[in-house]
């Protein structure tokens, strides 16, 4: 759906009054674009930073009076790529509009190559509590294939600096890089566990339109790993990380007890959030919105006093409930029937009773009568289940009307 203005829908049954307790800020700058990246990013365009900052400040100002939030998240791009002053200015503009509650969580994504003692001090001073470090791998070969600009030594060094600064540390790992063996992946997992971060996310390498890898794959220049070997690597990660004491709490996310990413849980639990910057998504008053993804287009819109929102949709109560069911099930603790009904006004059994039953019989879901959750096998193939949960159940095919029973040509 597209619209110039965002109409106010007074008839909607969206949860009102509950103002978002989370805010996301998108920082679209990078030193260079990695081959697998299809995000909203400007590589080597630092000259745009001042106009970008001014635009974000204006977008924040247009959101109205300051309101406290529990979580802030600076994602990218590479937020750590911002020069020190720009980082300070962005942090200040954000907390002016969204003061962080006491004991709030404030995450900033960082590239190991950018992490210095000075940088740690800068973010710590502003109130940042948590760094999501784009490690991706410790293997020189994988880092080379992924076109990353750091090496394992730099990772160790940045981890030490972050720990020293008293920051919570989350790291990302990618598996399924072309040519990756179980041994190579085991090496990554071992070093990740040894580094002892508070949080770990792991993703299979994907090929997305807009990334250089997309074209290289189309040309046959790069070959994705098979479904079977990706499955093996993913299961390996789950086994190694859970036995090292991490809690596997969402499809791709693992945390030390008490260190889940509260901000991301906002998304998965269907709670509302603000989003600022190019390509940022927001969910306010039951309306899902998306800012223009083009950095320059975003800046121009804001400069002209227009809304940067280009896509938005208003979900009805049933769609909201279905969405909540799907994203809730992606959290491994599952969805509790009672809480779900209280929260959405719909019962799981009315929405998708027979699908749930079918998936239970296939061993993909577990259902103890009060909580529905993914099994290990269900987790592995969960995308194949969601279509059936997002749409009403299909009725049995109907015999076509046979009113005019002409058996043949006239």
């Amino acid at each position: 759906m597209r619209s110039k203005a965002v109409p106010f829908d007074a008839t909607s049954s969206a949860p009102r009054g509950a103002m978002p307790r989370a805010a996301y800020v998108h920082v679209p700058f990078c030193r260079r674009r990695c081959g697998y990246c299809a995000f909203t990013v400007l590589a080597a365009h630092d000259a745009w930073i001042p106009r970008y900052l001014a635009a974000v400040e204006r977008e924040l100002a247009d959101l109205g009076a300051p309101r406290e939030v529990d979580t802030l998240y600076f994602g990218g791009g590479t937020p750590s790529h911002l020069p020190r002053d720009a980082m300070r200015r962005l942090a200040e503009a954000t907390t002016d509009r969204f003061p962080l509650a006491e004991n709030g969580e404030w995450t900033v994504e960082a590239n190991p190559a950018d992490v210095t003692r000075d940088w740690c001090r800068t973010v710590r001073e502003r109130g940042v509590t948590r760094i999501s470090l784009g490690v991706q791998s410790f293997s020189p070969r994988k880092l080379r294939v992924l076109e990353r600009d750091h090496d394992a030594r730099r990772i160790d060094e940045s981890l030490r600096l972050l720990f020293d600064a008293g920051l919570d540390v989350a790291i990302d790992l990618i598996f399924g890089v072309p040519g990756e063996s179980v041994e190579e992946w085991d090496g990554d997992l071992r070093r990740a566990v040894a580094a002892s971060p508070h949080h770990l996310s792991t993703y299979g390498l994907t090929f997305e339109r807009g990334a250089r890898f997309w074209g290289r794959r189309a040309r046959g220049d790069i070959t994705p790993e098979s479904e079977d070997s990706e499955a093996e690597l993913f299961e390996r990660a789950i086994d190694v990380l859970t036995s090292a004491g991490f809690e596997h709490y969402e499809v791709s996310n693992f945390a030390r007890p008490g260190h889940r990413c509260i901000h991301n849980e906002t998304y998965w639990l269907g709670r509302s959030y603000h989003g600022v910057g190019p390509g940022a998504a927001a969910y306010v008053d039951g309306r899902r919105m998306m800012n223009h993804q083009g950095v320059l287009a975003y800046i121009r819109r804001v400069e002209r006093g227009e809304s940067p929102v280009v896509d938005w949709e208003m979900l009805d109560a049933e769609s909201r409930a279905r969405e909540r069911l799907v994203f809730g099930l992606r959290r491994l603790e599952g969805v509790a029937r009672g809480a779900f009904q209280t929260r959405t006004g719909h019962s799981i059994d009315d929405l998708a009773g027979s699908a749930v039953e079918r998936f239970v019989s296939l061993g993909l879901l577990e259902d103890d009568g009060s909580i529905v959750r993914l099994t290990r096998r269900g987790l592995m193939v969960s995308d194949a289940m969601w279509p059936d949960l997002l749409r009403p159940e299909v009725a049995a095919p109907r015999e076509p009307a046979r009113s005019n029973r002409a058996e043949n040509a006239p």
Partner: protein
Amino acid sequence: MPDFDCSRIRNFCIIAHIDHGKSTLADRLLELTGTVTRREMRDQLLDDMELERERGITIKARAVAMYYEHEGTRYELNLIDTPGHVDFQYEVSRSLLCCEGALLLVDAFQGVEAQTVANAYLAMEHELHIIPVINKIDLKHARIEEVLEEMHQSLGIDPDDVVKVSAKTGLGVPDLLRAVIDRVPSPKGDPTGPLQAMVFDSHYDDYRGAITYVRVMNGRIEPGQKIRFLKGGTNHEVLELGQFRPRPVRCDSLGTGEVGYLVCNIKSLDLVHIGDTVSTAHHPAQPLPGYRVPKRMVYCGLYPADGQDFDELREELTKLSINDPSFEFVPETSEALGFGFRCGFLGLLHMEIIQQRLEQEADLDLVQTAPNVTYEITTKNGEVLEIHRPQEVPDTGSIDEFRQPIVRVNIIVPTESIGPVMTLCQDRRGEPKGNEYLSPSRAMVTYELPLAEVIYDLHDKLKSITRGYGTMDYELIGYAPADLVRLDILVNGKRVDALSFICHRGDSDRRGRQVVKKLKSEIDRHMFEVAVQAAIGSRVIARETVPAMRKNVTAKCYGGDITRKRKLWAKQREGKKRMKSVGNVDIPQKAFLAVLDTGEKK
């Protein structure tokens, strides 16, 4: 203006292989006789259906009357356009009956092709006077001498009789017109005898109903006359008579030897049978010989991809059959595909044409099953069954004899391909019927083959073996007993009726393996293992397994991903709806043609 004295009438047709320039030559004749001015000339005037243009094939026969002054005498020249393809052989033969002469057109570069031979023989059988013509003599690569030799070798044509033209530039076309007047005999018939007119074509006009094309053999027709279709058994009043010049032009009568159209307020083409005889209602004459009910030789199932479109599909098929009574359809039900239609066609090309029309004229998403030929079965208790779909084959135990249609196939190939082509025909259970060298570089190979093999892959194979140079034509010669079996395909133990097919017992292992392998590649991994089996009766002869899905999970799902992913997943559900479910297995539409897969890369 008509009726014309018989001695000044010439009725002729042009027979040629596709692309040898028939339509261009017709255009030149229309132009030269002043029937159409150059300004009015649209290229290839006779092929006025879009589809015909696209495929370069004339599907429906037409007739155009031309008037031409030659040495002080005015002549009526009726050019009867014939369909060039074997599927319409019966229609061709009816058209030929209306002519006394035929222009046999051969491309100066391509030379004699299979269709040239087939149609030339047909013309000779009808005792038409043949005027051989070499076209495209202006081509740089024209090989006139060799083509003359080929015509001599394959058809016994005297090189001195051949008229050389370029239909494109008009070179030699006046000589050809003179040859038509001098050499084509004038029609014989009794102008005062009882009316007998041959119906050789028809088409449907939304405002005037059926337009019937006739050639008057004896007697005459006038408006207001009460006529009778002798085979159809219906009586009508002639409302209008006329000729195509090339637009319809009314006339007061059609006399013996003349060709034209009648309009009788007939509401359905079903009542007009190609080959029927028109006579007077009060004192009907004897019917002309040779009438036949057209036999559908190829059948396939057509199903709406979305069950909701069933009624729309029926409407579209009805529309098509109004204009083409040789196409038939009846409702059928498949466990796998739901409600659809079994459709009968004269042949493979006819089937393709109907499918294309459906695609062009109707915005419908269709699932087609693999085509099959019409089989015959005599049961143990002496009953004879005509089998239009594999599901109708009874238990092996109750079959006394299983028969399949056999065709005689003429294949013209470059001499270096003779070996491989013979191997191909041998592999397809063909019986050699002759080899003939047409020239040092080309030869004609004749085989008798099961029609089922021809519709399976013979044409594609021939084209690939001969690098596109081979041409083939075939005619039905009858039915012969064969050791045939029905192969069933099971998906997770459930028989998929729409995938059953009939094949020779000796080929069943190979075909069964190919089909299950192809299906394995077409069926996506499911959340469980999917077994695909081929079986004869209860005996499984081939099996493949589609392993269960192992990993299908989106890793990143944060802010903006939520909407994107939800939409993507919801859309996948729509995509699944268009697949056909057997048990819990989703089978994509195109898998229903897997039976045709030969397991080899083309």
